[in-house]
């Protein structure tokens, strides 16, 4: 608790630096990553993040110390080389894109590990911090690092904001962009540079292995909540910043604990919450709307049953007969009867169920839709009368009043369905 208060009241200026850094870097990489996620190029981010390791090591070897300028430049150059190589191979060989990305990732990363081992054997006293670049350590960010990493993050965010319409075009319809004369090749290059930069600035805090998660997961999680690009980008940034700060907090409380994996843990939790609970697209919400729909279909079928009773000159049905009509569904039937009674569609006299006036009208509507659709299938699609029932049984619940109007006018207000049963209208006497 003490740690928690100390960290989140930001008394320590070095914590303030770290938190600002991680927020900027989180927002920047989530912003780029959302576009590359929408562009279905998520794997490229993973390849780039692994591919910058040899650059980091070479930068360290050249500088002889953990000089951020050398390391960032080295990382950028090897990231750029990997990106260039993958697009060159894609254009000039018949290798598939996934094969190219997988080979680039492993070749560069393998070479990086070799270099890392050489540095460790060299006994350079400065090398202690180099391992952090694998899994990241946000707490080790210093003021001088912040200017470089934070500055680059701000640059990325600004660029994406200025080029918003160009990058949307690049993702949505690059051919059209070329047709109106935009330099789409150049815009792709700029986007790739921003992507490499966003990976490079994350190496200190998150590490090369997990940087791809920070690029892609925020956008993927945010996509569950919204269909608007502006909201999507902001939400992704928030997810990323929150996970970044929480991951940093863990590194602060437990020294030597790498930040990257914890950021990914928090991001995954946010992604899981989005997947389960987001309105409309979430698993839970889809389950609930399906349940509501199934309940409605059961109610509709019950109304139809009572209507068919009237057609057979029974003013109503005993409750037992209704239960028998829906075998193994007694609970649902009880529930539907309760709901229908509450909505004044049916009246219950002891165990005898009858349709009310509004119930009759609703029942007629459902039967009408069912029989109109059957007739449409039969007349317009040449489907035999004994094959039309099943789809009509499903469509009667979802056909809208507009569709009903269309069907009526197309079929010229028919009296009988293909089974020679009456198609009931609202003003018909029952």
């Amino acid at each position, binding site marked *: 608790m003490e740690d928690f208060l100390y960290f989140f009241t930001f008394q320590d200026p070095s914590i303030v630096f770290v938190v600002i850094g991680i927020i900027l870097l989180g927002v920047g990489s989530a912003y780029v990553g959302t576009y590359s996620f929408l562009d279905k190029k998520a794997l490229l981010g993973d390849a780039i993040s692994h591919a910058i390791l040899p650059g980091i090591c070479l930068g360290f070897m050249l500088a002889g110390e953990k000089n951020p300028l050398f390391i960032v430049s080295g990382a950028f150059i090897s990231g750029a080389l990997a990106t260039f190589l993958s697009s060159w191979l894609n254009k000039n060989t018949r290798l598939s894109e996934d094969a190219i990305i997988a080979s680039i990732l492993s070749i560069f990363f393998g070479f990086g590990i070799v270099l890392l081992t050489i540095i460790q054997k060299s006994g350079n006293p400065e090398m202690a911090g180099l391992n952090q670049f694998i899994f990241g350590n946000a707490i080790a960010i210093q003021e001088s690092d912040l200017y470089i990493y934070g500055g680059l993050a701000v640059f990325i965010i600004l660029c994406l904001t200025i080029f918003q319409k160009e990058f949307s075009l690049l993702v*949505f*319809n690059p*051919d*059209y962009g070329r*047709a109106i004369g*935009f330099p789409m090749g150049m815009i792709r290059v700029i986007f790739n540079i921003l992507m490499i930069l966003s990976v490079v600035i994350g190496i200190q805090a998150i590490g090369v292995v997990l940087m791809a998660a920070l690029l892609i997961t925020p956008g993927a999680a945010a996509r569950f909540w919204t269909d608007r690009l502006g909201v999507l980008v902001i939400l992704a940034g928030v997810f990323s910043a929150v996970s970044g700060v929480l991951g940093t907090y863990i590194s602060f409380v437990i020294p030597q604990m790498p930040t990257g994996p914890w950021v990914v843990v928090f991001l995954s939790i946010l992604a899981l919450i989005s997947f389960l609970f987001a309105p409309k697209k979430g698993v839970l919400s889809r389950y609930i709307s399906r349940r509501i729909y199934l309940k409605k279909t059961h109610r509709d079928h019950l109304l139809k049953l009572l209507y068919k009773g009237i057609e057979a000159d029974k003013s109503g049905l005993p409750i037992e007969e209704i239960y028998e009509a829906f075998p193994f569904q007694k609970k649902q039937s009880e529930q539907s009867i309760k709901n229908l009674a509450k909505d004044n569609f049916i009246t219950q006299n002891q165990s005898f169920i009858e349709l009310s006036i509004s119930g009759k009208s609703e029942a007629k509507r459902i039967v009408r839709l069912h029989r109109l659709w059957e007739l449409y299938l039969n007349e317009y699609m040449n489907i035999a009368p004994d094959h039309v029932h099943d789809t009509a049984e499903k469509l009667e619940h979802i056909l809208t009043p507009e569709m009903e109007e269309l069907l009526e006018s197309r079929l010229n207000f028919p009296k009988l369905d293909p089974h020679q049963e009456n198609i009931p209208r609202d003003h018909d006497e029952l």
Partner: protein
Amino acid sequence: MITQVKSPILEIHDLTVSYDQSPVLWNVDLSLPSGKLIGILGPNGAGKSTLIKAIMGLVDPSGGYVKLFDKTLEEVRSRISYVPQRESVDWNFPASVLDVVMMGTYGKLGLFKRPGKKEKELSMESLEKVGMHGFANRQISELSGGQQQRVFIARSLAQNADLYLMDEPFAGVDMATETAIFELLQEMTAAGKTVIVVHHDIYSAVNYFDWFIMLNLHLVASGPKETVMTEDLLRKTYGGKLNLLTKVSDLIRQKEFNPLKN
């Protein structure tokens, strides 16, 4: 049966295009008059879309050239509008109908600048012409196929061009919409614009187009409706690919390089 015209709006000279070395268009040579509604007909894989893409500079020809308004494409790009195939984009992209139509104004707007009030008004007008103004704020993922086509057409109208190239704008469109769009295109040509449309349905094509280009890997015909709508030319267009041409294509594909490239 190829009718050449004087002072053409579009001139294609000996154009050959290949994908991965297999030629998909052989020596297309034609010229088109302005102010006409022109249909490109041909079976699947005849190279109809490729011809349009080559005109727009989206695929590199292995031979020949295209001239528009007697100039190169770069010089007159702002006067040309392109409607890509509906299936060529991911409609799940998070954007509204208005966002997409507004892309039509980007060409005149140029880089960096963001669309403002004027561009918005122009886009709304274009949406109104295709009867979609009520959908401006709808997400594109919620549209039906026909509505998506109309959004793409509205986007190209927002470009305010003189020459329109449309790739299968009637694919997945119901009859009522098809008629409405054809009427709109006829209004445009009456106002002096030229519209070139890749189309798959010969029956409706006969009713609407003034001029036809018939393709089947090579140019079968190009000319006014009266002269090219003959049984003989239609059979040449739709009656299977030339045997020898496919054999040569196979031969070229097996080479280590593309012998047709300049």
